[in-house]
């Protein structure tokens, strides 16, 4: 039996991907990019509306578009992409998915699609125009919340699949470290699971309220539970992105891993520290003491620590690789990087974007600075830089080798060139759009608001030029998104047949062995629970026991 398994793993490595696993991931990716197209189109409509160039019809108004854009892209595109990507990674590094895990993958997809159908239908019917944060006391149709439950169940099914494949591999390979990419998968899904607990509790209190079985809802509690998820989700995407930075990018540039141990430590730290960071989204909410907010700022900033480790590690890899190729001088290695290779360029621009994006995030985490920008377009600009650039460009970069690998095709120089054009269009579009959003946010232009001149108020009129830039950026992004969708489907069905490798970086020669304690997941889980309870017990008990009378539902649209 064991010999058979080893044989299967070896053939898998030699012959490439198992066709059943490839079909699973490619289905996920196809749906993800169709969703990206729909979400992106909605984004364009919004951008044009914000610039005052387009009046949206009453039957599909700005707020419906905004809700759909947010939920489709933030929740569904990323979730589909992440599951597809990590299942492919598990299939490759662990020697094929075991049948039960593959079934979990399909079940997860089914559940997520059912959920998406519910959510999208209610939004289109104008029964759930509650924006993607669905803050109570705004009340959507109960079927909207039920749809969300299905999406969460889908994510949990995918999570169980990841854990099962990791556990089964460990049983078959006693005494070995889980391969690094699989280690990332376990970490990311563990974090996603922890993050989704709070929002599930929230949604389960909202459903009876939306049906009218309970009269009121605890608004502050709901918001708090939402952000225990909302912020964690951001870091789950980031997690997915950095798994490619650490493991894939070094191989693409012809280098080695920075350090297996450090990478695993970053994964563990991200899992343990993340969830209580969510509070900084509520930093201007009333009802919490400043001491609590301070503690959560501390937790938020503590996440910056593993991020800085990542930045250090990545640039160290670049420099090391450049010098091995004969680079001279302080910055000579920059020239040795393969800038003409889209598989490198896209994640590299993503990393560069993360420098201002991360710095902006740290600035926003501070109470006083947050007061200035909280409800402005600055915040929208910030998350288009983090999610829309850092995360999404990395996802795009992954597509150029993962899809050919799965479809047994090749990335041609022509598509590589188109990919570079795509990457640059996207980056420039985001520079315009996100830059304009940041700046006009500082000037006071509010977020989550359709175009208005506030009765031709002079200040509001002064925002217009920036909003125009926003629309130009949005248009470029739409073009970039369209190109990407063409590239994805081209690589899936049209590109010439061939062999593409799954690029996984090897450790340096003579690298010190990874210590065994990195595999103590039991301990990491317990520490994560302890940190989550440290962060949330005090506020949540206070919000429940000192609750104001709850709020009846409101329909603001």
């Amino acid at each position, binding site marked *: 039996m064991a010999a058979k398994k080893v044989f299967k793993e070896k053939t898998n490595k030699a012959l490439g991907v198992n066709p059943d696993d490839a079909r699973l991931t490619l289905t996920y990716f196809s749906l993800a990019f169709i969703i990206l197209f729909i979400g992106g189109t909605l984004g364009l409509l919004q951008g044009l509306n914000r610039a005052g160039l387009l009046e949206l019809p009453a039957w599909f108004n700005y707020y419906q578009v905004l809700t759909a854009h947010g939920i489709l892209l933030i929740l569904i595109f990323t979730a589909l992409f992440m599951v597809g990507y990590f299942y492919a990674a598990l299939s490759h590094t662990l020697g094929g998915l075991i049948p039960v895990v593959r079934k979990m993958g399909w079940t997860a997809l089914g559940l997520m699609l059912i959920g998406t159908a519910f959510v999208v239908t209610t939004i289109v019917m104008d029964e759930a125009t509650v924006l993607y944060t669905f803050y109570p006391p705004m009340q959507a149709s109960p079927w909207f919340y039920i749809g969300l439950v299905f999406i969460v169940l889908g994510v949990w099914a995918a999570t169980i699949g990841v854990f099962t494949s990791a556990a089964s591999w460990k049983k078959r390979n006693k005494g070995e470290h889980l391969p690094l990419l699989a280690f990332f998968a376990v970490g990311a899904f563990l974090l996603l699971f922890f993050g989704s607990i709070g929002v599930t509790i929230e949604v389960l209190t909202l459903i009876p309220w939306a049906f009218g079985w309970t009269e009121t809802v605890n608004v502050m509690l709901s918001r708090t539970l939402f952000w225990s998820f909302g912020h964690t989700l951001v870091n789950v995407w980031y997690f997915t992105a950095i798994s490619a930075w650490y493991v894939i990018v070094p191989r693409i540039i012809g280098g080695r891993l920075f350090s297996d141990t450090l990478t695993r430590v970053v994964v563990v730290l991200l899992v343990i520290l993340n969830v209580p960071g969510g509070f900084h989204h509520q930093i201007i909410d009333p009802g919490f003491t400043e*001491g609590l907010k301070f503690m959560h700022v501390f937790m938020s900033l503590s996440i910056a620590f593993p991020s800085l480790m990542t930045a250090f590690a990545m640039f160290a890899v670049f420099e090391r690789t450049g010098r091995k190729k004969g680079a001279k001088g302080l910055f000579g290695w920059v020239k040795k990087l393969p800038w003409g290779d889209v598989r490198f360029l896209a994640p590299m621009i993503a990393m560069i974007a993360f420098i201002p994006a991360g710095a902006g995030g740290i600035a926003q985490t501070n109470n006083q600075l947050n007061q200035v920008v909280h409800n402005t377009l600055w915040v929208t600009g910030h998350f288009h830089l983090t999610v829309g650039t850092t995360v999404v460009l990395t996802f795009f970069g992954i597509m150029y080798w993962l899809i050919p690998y799965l479809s047994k095709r090749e990335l041609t120089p022509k598509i590589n060139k188109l990919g570079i054009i795509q990457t640059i269009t996207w980056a420039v579009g985001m520079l315009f759009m996100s830059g304009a959003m940041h700046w006009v946010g500082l000037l006071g232009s509010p977020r989550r608001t359709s175009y208005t001149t506030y009765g031709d108020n002079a200040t509001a009129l002064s925002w217009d030029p920036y909003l125009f830039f926003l629309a130009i950026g949005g248009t470029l992004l739409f073009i970039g998104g369209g190109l990407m969708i063409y590239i994805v489907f081209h690589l899936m069905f049209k590109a010439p047949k061939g062999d593409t490798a799954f690029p996984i970086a090897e450790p340096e020669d003579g690298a010190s062995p990874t210590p065994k304690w990195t595999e103590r997941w039991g301990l990491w889980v317990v520490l994560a*629970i*302890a940190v989550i309870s440290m962060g949330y017990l005090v506020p949540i008990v206070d919000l429940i026991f000192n609750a104001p009378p709850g709020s009846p539902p409101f329909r603001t649209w």
Partner: protein
Amino acid sequence: MKQAIYGLLLYVFLMLPPVVTLLESIMSFHMHMQMPLLIIAGLLMTPFLQKKFPRLFEKWNQNGVPGILLFTIIMIYWMFPRTMDEALTIQAVQVFKFISLPFLAGVPLRDSWRKLGGFGKNVIYVSFSIMFGFMGILYVFSESQLCNNYLIVEQKTLGWGFIALAVCIIIYFIQLLFIDESEYE
């Protein structure tokens, strides 16, 4: 040595008046942050003390049982609501807190932990999860204010904190029973 310096730094940091004020202003912070951090400071300083006074540890804590007993007694002492009140109102008790938690709980815990066998460790896991669970129930469901210095809502929070801690210990203990780490290592 490096560890001992970090421990000492943490110890001094915890003694700074603004830190003391902040951590003692909320009941949960007092019990579930300041006190564990004091113990951690002690844990970090242990190797230095073991090197400095090897005879002491050998003579008094040969099999780890006296040390873990001392740790347990100190822990139980600081779980009485009254002791926490007194730490806030009587200077001498506050001083005792800053000495007892690192040096009479943290140091013996680390010294004993390696010396204890599997059975001893299991006894500690089980008894502390039961104790924390009991404390949690006491604090959550008590009708009256147990500490003069803290409000009832803070008491309930602390109770939930104890329950969370008990759950953490139980999860950790169960995974230790089911997952044989040596199989993977």
